[in-house]
């Protein structure tokens, strides 16, 4: 599920918040005075407190409930996912709900279902609520309600946490949360899934004249024949523009960076094609447009009708909004050295058009709308409990470690959209279809850290490793959605290996501490899905690679395997090559991108993968028929691995005469019919037939 700057808590509630806070302060005073009558001095204690019943909170609730942990989800509204009651304002989710994939593989289908949460109930999918590719936003809270009630998750609604402070619980840091009624929750582990819901604002002169995305009218009629300036070029800005495209006279979008198109950057937070109609009207010169510039430099000023030296604009003034005067974009440096409050005295000289006659934004606007996204609500945290602001994303997000624990706030984890700082503008961690997997990963880390339950691992004989990797590559949704962020780890242990799914890659140096799985001296493999260099035109020629030997130049999502002899250190991780999810490995293997995302072909996918694994494991991984294993078992003291792990365990693959004949004709299986090898004509022609067929298929249909 993606919605730029998504938040969990309803924006309106922010208005009521001070009131609650006041109440709580009152109740705290009462409580400290020793009165036991008031409800506020209750104290509840839980091992896990989940803050916010949005998608991330419920997702974590599900995992905690499944592992039968003592947990509570605290939500100040009366139902889950209240953010979605208001946002997106124009009520269309842009997260893909693709029901028909032509496949019945449930894991695979999650690759194309961006709204469902994870559970072991295969019927708890979003498609039960809506069958629209881009569903209505009201459907999402409905889905969350269904998810919560059918799984019986413990949510306490109407608990508005106003204050969080750190506290010492038996030597480890815990958290005390206080709600509007003064009830305090003692939490050993705090899981913050409050989302992002505080509208992001930029302070400039005249910002009070600007309407916010959170409160603009959504009826296009209200924009009839109006000139509109929108600050921002993200999905909310374009969504707003798109809704009024048929009514507004002129729409300009203004922000520092140029538009980034999701289909070019592969980042779903960038402008999605579903919202981009304005690009059309801009490029076809239908009076709309995009402009780049710094937000901090601008000022929005109102010029009253009688405020300037007006002589010729009478006609126009009649069409403008009812006598309030129009809004101009200007620059702080052009205003007289007075402070911004004095904008009623704006003259022509204060406007850029006076100095540069063809200035793009010289015409006045009826409305200026701010669509700059949302930020994390830091205000409820006491100093000791407050995670720092992230270095990226304009400080809008809390800073977290590679395993989603707040930096400097032990035992406080950030989940969901708020945890996007780790993969901001890179992957899908800020969106439901991504963070449902990171939540699962965090839960596994919790299980290890607090309950000593190691990260689940499948033990596989090495002879099964290749097919297991191919299985994951062809169906796994976690690494596919959280490309470059979550990856499968394969701990090599000689004749067998342990397969760990969806580990946060940035935390690889802490693998043992976080997963409880030690590394052996056989090294490890990491399977990551990633996009490529992306240096070519997204729709231009040469964008697709079909030659497996050039797989590292693949632009589209494709599997990459990294092999390390020893675990990379934190330093290795910091100094990793630019744009790489992991440090330089001892060997790397790219599986060539596939137009159908089916990596299952023998020549282009399987065999190169096998040879890479053979290199990493330093062993022959070829499969042999029982007859070959028979020969090798009697004539070699250590037969190949496949024979040792199959045939010699009485599980040989016998085959039949038809297959043996193929293998013999290919020269791969010995012919034992005596010391004479008769070559008959038919076998040769058979061979040629096959050889001919192999030559045909080098055409590239992906261009």
């Amino acid at each position: 599920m993606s919605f730029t700057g998504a938040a969990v808590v309803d924006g309106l509630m922010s208005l009521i918040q001070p009131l609650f806070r006041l109440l709580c302060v009152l109740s705290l005073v009462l409580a400290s005075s020793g009165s036991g009558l008031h409800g506020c001095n209750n104290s509840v204690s839980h091992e896990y407190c989940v803050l916010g019943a949005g998608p991330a909170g419920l997702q974590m609730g599900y995992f905690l409930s499944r592992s039968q942990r003592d947990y509570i989800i605290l939500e100040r509204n009366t139902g889950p996912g209240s953010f979605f009651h208001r946002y997106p304002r124009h009520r269309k989710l842009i997260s893909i709900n693709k029901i028909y994939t032509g496949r019945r593989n449930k894991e695979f289908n999650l690759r194309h279902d961006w709204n469902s949460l994870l559970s072991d109930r295969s019927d708890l999918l979003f498609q039960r609520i809506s069958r629209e590719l881009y569903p209505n936003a009201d459907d999402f809270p409905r889905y969350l309600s269904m998810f919560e009630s059918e799984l019986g998750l413990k949510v306490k609604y109407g608990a508005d946490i106003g204050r969080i402070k750190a506290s010492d619980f038996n030597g480890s840091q815990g958290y005390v949360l206080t709600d509007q009624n003064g009830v305090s929750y003692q939490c050993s582990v705090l899981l913050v899934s409050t989302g992002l819901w505080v509208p992001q604002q930029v302070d400039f002169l005249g910002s009070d004249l600007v309407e916010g995305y959170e409160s603009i009218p959504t009826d296009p009629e209200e924009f009839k024949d109006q000139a509109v300036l929108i600050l921002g070029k993200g999905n909310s800005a374009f969504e707003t523009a798109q809704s009024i495209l048929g009514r507004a006279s002129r729409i300009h979008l203004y922000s520092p960076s140029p538009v980034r198109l999701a289909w070019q950057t592969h980042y779903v937070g960038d402008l999605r094609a579903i919202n981009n109609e304005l690009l059309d009207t801009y490029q076809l010169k239908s009076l709309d447009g995009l402009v780049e510039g710094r937000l901090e430099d601008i000022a929005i000023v109102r010029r009253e009708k009688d405020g300037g030296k007006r002589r010729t604009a009478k006609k126009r003034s009649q069409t403008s909004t009812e006598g309030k005067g129009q809004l101009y974009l200007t620059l702080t440096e052009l205003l007289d050295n007075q402070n911004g409050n004095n904008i009623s005295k704006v003259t022509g000289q204060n406007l850029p058009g006076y100095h540069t006659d063809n200035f793009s934004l010289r015409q006045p606007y009826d409305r200026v709308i701010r669509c700059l996204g949302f930020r994390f609500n830091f205000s409820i945290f006491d100093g000791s409990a407050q995670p720092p602001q992230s270095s990226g994303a304009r400080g809008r997000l809390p800073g977290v470690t590679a395993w989603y624990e707040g930096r400097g706030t032990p035992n406080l984890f950030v989940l969901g959209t708020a945890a996007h700082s780790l993969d901001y503008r890179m992957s899908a961690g800020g969106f439901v279809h991504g963070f449902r997997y990171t939540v699962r990963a965090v839960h596994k880390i919790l299980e290890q850290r607090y309950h000593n339950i190691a990260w689940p691992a499948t033990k596989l004989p090495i002879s099964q490793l290749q097919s297991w990797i191919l299985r994951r590559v062809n169906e796994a949704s976690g690494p596919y959605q959280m490309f470059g962020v979550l990856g499968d780890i394969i701990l090599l242990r000689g004749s067998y290996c342990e397969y760990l799914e969806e580990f946060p890659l940035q935390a690889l140096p802490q693998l043992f501490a976080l997963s409880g799985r030690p590394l052996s001296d056989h090294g490890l493999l990491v399977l990551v899905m990633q996009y490529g260099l992306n240096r070519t035109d997204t729709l231009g020629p040469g964008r697709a690679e079909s030659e497996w030997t050039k797989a590292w130049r693949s632009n589209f999502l494709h599997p990459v395997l990294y092999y390390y002899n020893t675990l990379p250190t934190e330093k290795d991780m910091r100094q990793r090559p630019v744009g790489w999810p992991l440090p330089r490995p001892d060997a790397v293997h790219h599986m060539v991108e596939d137009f159908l995302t089916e990596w299952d072909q023998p020549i282009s996918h399987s065999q190169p993968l096998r040879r890479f694994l053979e290199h990493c494991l330093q062993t022959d991984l070829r499969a042999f028929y029982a007859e070959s294993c028979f020969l090798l078992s009697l004539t070699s003291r250590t037969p190949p691995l496949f024979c040792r792990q199959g045939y010699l365990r009485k599980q040989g693959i016998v085959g039949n005469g038809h297959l043996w004949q193929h293998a013999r004709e290919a020269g791969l299986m010995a012919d034992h019919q005596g010391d004479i090898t008769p070559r008959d004509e038919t076998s040769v022609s058979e061979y040629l037939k096959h050889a001919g067929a192999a030559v045909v298929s080098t055409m590239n249909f992906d261009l």
Partner: protein
Amino acid sequence: MCIVYLIAFLFSLTAEQCFSKLIEDSSQSFMERMSTGKTSFVYFGNHVNPTIKLFMEQLEMSADALEDYGISVVKVNCSKDAIANYCTEEKLMTKAYLFRGSEVLRNFDIDTVFDVNAIVSHVLFSVLFNEVRYVHTPAELLRVETAAKQNSDIVVGHIPVLGLPEHRALMEAAFVYGTKYQFVQTTGSLVLKHMGVVDSSSSQARLWFLHCKGVSRQSDPCPSTPMTKPLNTINIHTFLQLMEAPLVTEAMLDPSEVDVVHMHLGVPVLYLFSQPQTQHLDQATAQTLALQLRGEVGVVLIHRNSPNVKTPLKYNAAYRLPQEDVKYFTLNSGEEVVKLFKEELLQEHKLEDEEEDEEHWSDPDILDDEVSESVYRDRDLMLDLESVVELTSDTFQTTVTQNGITVVLFYFKWDAVCMAFIQSYTEVADALEGVNGVQLAAVNCGEWTDICSDQNVTSFPTVLIYRPMSAAQLYRGMLGTKSLHRFILLSLVSSPTHLSSSAEVKSFLEGDVYSKHVYLTPVRVLGLFSSTHDKGVTSFEEAGRLLRGETILGLFAHKEAEQWVEGLSVNLPALLVSHGPGVPYEVYSLPSSSPTDHVALIQRVELDHFPELTVENLPWYLELGKPLLLLFIGKEDSTESTKALAEIKQPLSSGQLDSFLPCWIHLGRTPVGRSILDKYLGFVPPLPALVMSRLKTGGEVFLFPPERPLMAKNVLQWIHDVENRQEQPAGLIPDGKWGPPVPFFDFLAIMDQEAPTYAAQRGPKTKTGRREDHREQKHVTPNQRQTSHTSQNPQAPRQHSEL
């Protein structure tokens, strides 16, 4: 003279094929022939089928070829002239005979002498039996060398496959040069290693010339020269000529005027110029170079002091390739010249050959996995799963509870091993169609991943057996048609079979009940308990359930059970094993233990004491970890084979072979046995052959001397000798590691080459920021607003650009 003979012979090959030299004999002319004492190759036939027709054509061609060696090729039509012994022979049609006079030198299967090359090579080899030495081991070769030293040179031919043109070429050469050189033929890889061939796996024929005649002392080894060109008549002839040519020819002429035999043989010549003052040194250099280049390049030493030599002084060497002009150059060192020839001038043709060979498997787009490749070759075939039900999430539960037995295969479409097995699986399904209560089904785990996870399937392919009301049973046998088919049918037999009277026990062991399932297995295992209340009964019953499909297990818990162990040194509870009617029962005591221990015991006692090893049963026997006493018997069930089997079986009961696993391989049923023999010994000895293979301990292989009669006492003596280190191993089983068969495709190396910084770790100073847009970070945050930059940028409006 030899040349003339050879050329004449070659002409005969090409020109004289139009009229046949094949003689048809009547009984009278055959008798006459017998009395002449001449050598003849005779085929007796009575009718013609397509195979025989092809053979007759080849025979006809061989008549022309063998005529040159004074051997007549004859056919006798037995339907017209029934010649005693030969026309009445059982193997008539499939045999041909080589006579010298009336004596049969050898007989051949026509499979062996399948074409003209095979006929000529085998016939000549038989005729030259005394001239051409056949060796298998380096030791034998050394003996031949010792005998030849200071006497004659040796030509050693390594012929991996008999009857091919290379073999014929060697035999023809032996016929021509046999009096001049000692010819040696070998087929084994041991000699190959001895001759310094590193990659002994290639089946290329090779030839060496051992210069034994010129050896000055008996203790010196014979220097050898390998022939680098492919083995054919012309090349062998050329090579032998070169071996005869003087090592260094000295001349007083300009290079273009020197006439050496090498030029006529199409071999490059190297010319070295000698100054009078350094003559001895130059001669030594020429000798060294000539030795290194022997057989490939001729060396001529030209003395500059002759006025006929006009080559400018700045050159000290020259070479001339066949059909080319002399090229002059300046030589700095001997190695340089060797390198020049070996790596450049002589490589042209060889490179091409090698590339073909090498590239075949290193071509990344050719599958080198026998299972993948054979499945891939079937890619145009639609998978016919008609008799197998494809299960889905919706049908899985109902199907596996519906039938008496539901066999379910879990597979991936893209896994070659699964797809190879699925062919066997459908064969089983077809064979079992109509068997009541058995349903074969399959789950495609690529699609129904949830079923496969729910059923805890982590290995592919997996076969599970479902019965209503009981947990799924994992099929642990061979993934092949025969094994699975047998397993499913055996699964229908209740396990254990509860027997309630001695009569039923009798029937179970050798009566009606026995014969009902005898086609599945001859072995019966019976648990004997004195009463149903015996504590061990439940454990035994559980073991029975675990072994269902693998063993036919009976349970007799009755007071009469005592009778069955009467007189045997075992008390109840006991395990009675029958390997079929007529074979004495074996009895083991059955201590009370866990079901899995019972399973292990039963599996162990079921094993044969003198098994025929087959592809499907070997793992059970290898598990014992004993050295193998392995008897190889031929395709034809001859009396010799039967006798050999009986001889080995004889000491079994006395326990003298207990530290071994005596076993046998029938090359007809298990043809791969031939390759085993070949790998063990480097050749295939006459059958039956007895081999001791110490697979787990040291890897030595010993061959029971073929000349000794294969009799129990000789075998025991031989084993004794082997154990006392009095026998030499005939081969060694390698303990090589199975490393990657092909080097992997190193993407990192390619990245480093094509985009040097792409895969490089950053230096410590580089900022640690991820791929975020740094431009954003540079912007001042609203709270930290700065006004100073205004003045820096007076043209501010321009800053707002429409991109």
